[in-house]
């Protein structure tokens, strides 16, 4: 009798246990611990990131319009159409030049600023705060302020350039097809060069001072110190940011959309803008899915370079 009563009591005792107790028992079990810790993040990523990607890839294989409720299977026809359309390749090359141009400008400005800020001087905290600020300023603010400053009629940049005599009459920075894209690259870099600065500065600060002292003792000049100590130390982070920034800038949507909406004409329509127009203005979802698929392909190529070249998972010790 007593054993039966104990069993029954035990049954009833389990629900009585507090939530904390339940979690404690779960934490002791290895499998449950994995599920509890890695689970939430994995579920979030599956739902928010991997499911949409798969959806887009799948959508690319159908003829789907926003107005027609049914999807028709067309296989790779969308991809064939997209890859044969000159508009796609124009957008592709614009994306590429926007990406390369942005990364080049950002790298030079970003690394230079990081080297400058790694020095100790009075007011360095304030200078850092001022220089970091653009990175946290929302892109829409950056885009709007630059639109005002670059306006062909009343922009301050034109006033400045006319005043110091570089140009004779105002330039429509964002309204003339030939210079709209380079202008976008500069405005974009104003904000995002700081990302590279933060990355490189963080790395620079972890270089032990002894390295430089030893080099000075051995008679190395500043150029030699830079080449043989600083550069090897920051090379990894520079290559990494080059690749990651390149991918992100290639896929940049917001600042281009805010500043030019792909215009004037088609002169700043990069691939992300092209997807947006295809999906939300032309309502050709299948085509948009196929373009997204090709973007995903480029990402994959970037990822292969990244994993083969840097083996980032190797760093995951323990």
């Amino acid at each position, binding site marked *: 009798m007593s054993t039966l009563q104990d069993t029954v009591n035990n049954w009833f005792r389990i629900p009585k246990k507090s939530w904390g107790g339940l979690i*404690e028992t779960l934490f002791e079990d290895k499998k449950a*611990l*994995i599920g509890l*810790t890695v689970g939430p993040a994995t579920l979030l990523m599956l739902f*928010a990131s991997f*499911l949409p990607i798969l*959806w887009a890839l799948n959508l690319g294989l159908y003829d789907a319009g926003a107005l027609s409720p049914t999807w028709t299977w067309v296989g790779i026809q969308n991809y064939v159409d997209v890859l044969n359309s000159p508009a796609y390749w124009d957008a592709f090359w614009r994306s590429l030049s926007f990406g390369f141009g942005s990364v080049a400008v950002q790298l030079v400005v970003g690394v230079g600023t990081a080297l400058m800020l790694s020095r100790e001087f009075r007011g360095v905290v304030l200078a850092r705060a001022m220089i970091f600020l653009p990175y946290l300023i929302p892109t829409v603010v950056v885009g709007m302020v630059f639109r005002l400053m670059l306006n062909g009629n009343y922009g301050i940049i034109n006033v400045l350039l006319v005043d110091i005599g570089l140009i004779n009459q105002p330039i429509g920075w964002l309204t003339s097809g030939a210079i709209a894209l380079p202008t976008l690259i500069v405005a974009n870099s104003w904000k995002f060069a700081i990302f590279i600065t933060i990355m490189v500065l963080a790395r620079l600060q972890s270089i032990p001072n002894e390295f430089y002292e030893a080099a000075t003792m051995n008679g190395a*000049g500043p150029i030699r110190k830079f080449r043989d100590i600083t550069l090897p130390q920051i090379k990894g982070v520079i290559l990494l940011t080059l690749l990651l920034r390149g991918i992100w800038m290639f896929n940049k949507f917001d600042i281009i959309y805010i500043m030019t909406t792909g215009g004037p004409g088609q002169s700043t329509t990069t691939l992300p803008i092209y997807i947006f127009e295809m999906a939300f203005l032309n309502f050709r979802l299948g085509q948009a899915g196929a373009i997204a698929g090709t973007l995903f392909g480029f990402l994959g190529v970037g990822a292969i370079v990244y994993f083969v070249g840097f083996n980032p998972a190797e760093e995951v010790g323990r």
Partner: protein
Amino acid sequence: MVFSDRVSNRIQSFVGGILPYQERLQVRKAALYFVVILTCVVMMFPMYWMLVASVQPYDHIVQTPTWFPTQVIAAFQIDAYISVFADRNFERWYLNSVLVAIIAIVSSVGASTLAGYGLTRVQFRGRKNFARLILFSYMFPPILLAFPQYQIWRRLGLLNSYIGISVAHIAISLPFSMWMMWKFFQTVPIAYEEAAWMNGASQFHSFKDVAIPMAKPGMVAVAIFTFAVSWNDFTMATILLPDSSMQTLPPAVQTFVQQNYVYWGQIMAASTLMSIPPFLLVYKLQESILEGFRTGGL
């Protein structure tokens, strides 16, 4: 001696020949300050221009501007600030942005802290592939996610909802956050937790009272990063929040631009108000930002 050394020594001895050591130091310092100030001016000028335009009447903004706009002092007005609240739904958009950022920060910090702990403290197979997958998803650009998310969210009724947009922001911020916390927990010695177990603490107890407090700097960095992503996001909010009353600030400000009239004053006033939280953050927490990126190691 290498060529570059010879060159730099030559330059040094040349300069040194002209100036004594003390003055050379001063010249170098002055040059550094000059470059720093120049960079700060270039970086801050757009912000300055934004402030100037936000307190000017429209007519002054669209006239040919002058460097130091003296007419601003004469024509100083805060009409633009008043009208973003009076004529537009600005407080609602601000509230939306703040709520979305809070949801995204809480979930991102929570999920990434747990994941970082699990990945460093429990051995299981496939961790390397897991790391690769995280880093791969880190590369997904917003437009690639937002376009299919729109289709899926519409079916699930998540368009125009705080949850829907927050989840979209988490998709962007979580991979890097997870990576940062993973790296961060590797720098936290497991010995402290072992000491806690020796003293009879359970695994959960040691997690809650030993590991979490030590992971705080990493969590702060993740929170800042997620805030930056959420506060900044334009692409996803434009696509996933078509309803004006649910919009966050970035797409809402974009609507101030109309076919034949740009409300510059209101745009710049709204921009100024949007820039205040990032400014406070960057000034107060720059050490944590650097700390997080340092251990994040990317």
